[in-house]
């Protein structure tokens, strides 16, 4: 009984990894049904050579794109799609509020706290990494 409970917890803590890349802390906010879009955040740790996150996909989104926020000064913020996100060798990249995120365009399901939303990340070298985004407030 105990063992069966510990194994999934360890897997959860370890995150999902492939070829030196480890993806952890994948989350998104609860989304009001009136909000057509949402964002996913995550951290990618790289113990291997340089790689690149090229795209993302989720069955819960019409389309998923990689986006970044930018600060235009005087408190003005904007957002734009990015072609890909560089993951430096031996480094880590965090997609977080006010910075980079996976934009979930045309959300197809309600995101309520505690939900786990499947998300597929496509890397140039490491290939596909499947993760689950936990829905929580922050």
């Amino acid at each position, binding site marked *: 009984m105990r063992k069966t409970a510990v194994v999934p917890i360890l897997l959860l803590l370890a995150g999902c990894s492939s070829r030196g890349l480890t993806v952890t802390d994948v989350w998104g*906010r*609860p*989304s*009001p*049904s*009136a*909000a*057509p*879009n*949402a*964002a996913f955040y995550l951290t990618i740790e790289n113990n291997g050579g340089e790689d690149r996150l090229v795209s993302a996909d989720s069955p819960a989104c*019409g*389309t998923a*794109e990689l*986006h970044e*926020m930018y600060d*235009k000064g*005087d*408190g*003005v*913020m*904007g*957002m*734009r*799609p990015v072609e890909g996100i560089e993951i430096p060798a031996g480094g880590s990249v965090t997609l977080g*509020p*006010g910075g980079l*995120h996976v*934009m*979930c*365009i*045309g959300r197809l399901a309600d995101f309520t706290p505690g939900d786990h939303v499947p998300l597929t990340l496509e890397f140039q070298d490491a290939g596909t990494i499947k993760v689950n985004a936990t829905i929580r*407030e*922050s």
Partner: protein
Amino acid sequence: MAPEGNGGNRDDLHRDAPLLRQVKRLVIIAGSILAAFVVLFVGLRLLRPYVFSGTVIQSPEPSFSFTLESMSGPVSLSDFGGKVVVLYFGYTFCPDVCPATLTDLARAMKLLGKKADDVQVIMVSVDPERDTADKLEEYVHAFDPDFIGLTGTPEQIAEVAARYGVYYAKHEGSDASGYLIDHTATVMVINEEGRLKLLESFGTTPEEMAADLAHLIN
């Protein structure tokens, strides 16, 4: 033998007494200095004015009083006279900055407890073409059922934004996202007298905003 011994003790007492007095005196002096420092420190802390996390604005004129549309009809800024009004400009298609700010504001309201009754949070849409009053209300209520969402004609929104120094501009996103909007992400706080008092920049914590708001509530 015995008297001698007594005499010896007496001599010891005579020798010790001034030393004991000196120690006592030193303890009293040190204690007084410490007490003075404590009084000074506490006094200075009490006298020191509250430092806002937000940028303080000294506006001689009352804030521009607008009337915009909510799901349940027109709403004017003047409807909230006597309350602190938190004004935020955003749009429901915004996936990152707007939900982050509204989540933080909802958390700040919770931290304020009963005092939150003296605060009204209003989100004005900078995307009147896509944000209908119904959608906007559903959107803001998901964060806090007391929040109000307001929209209007593009001309009305442009006027309100201009009067509050809010910038917004559409730009092309992708085919999937449709247009995106650059906009001022600053939260504005209007005090109970109806004057713009604080600007809270993006990233101010719920704790900092709650403390600022609590300080503005009389």
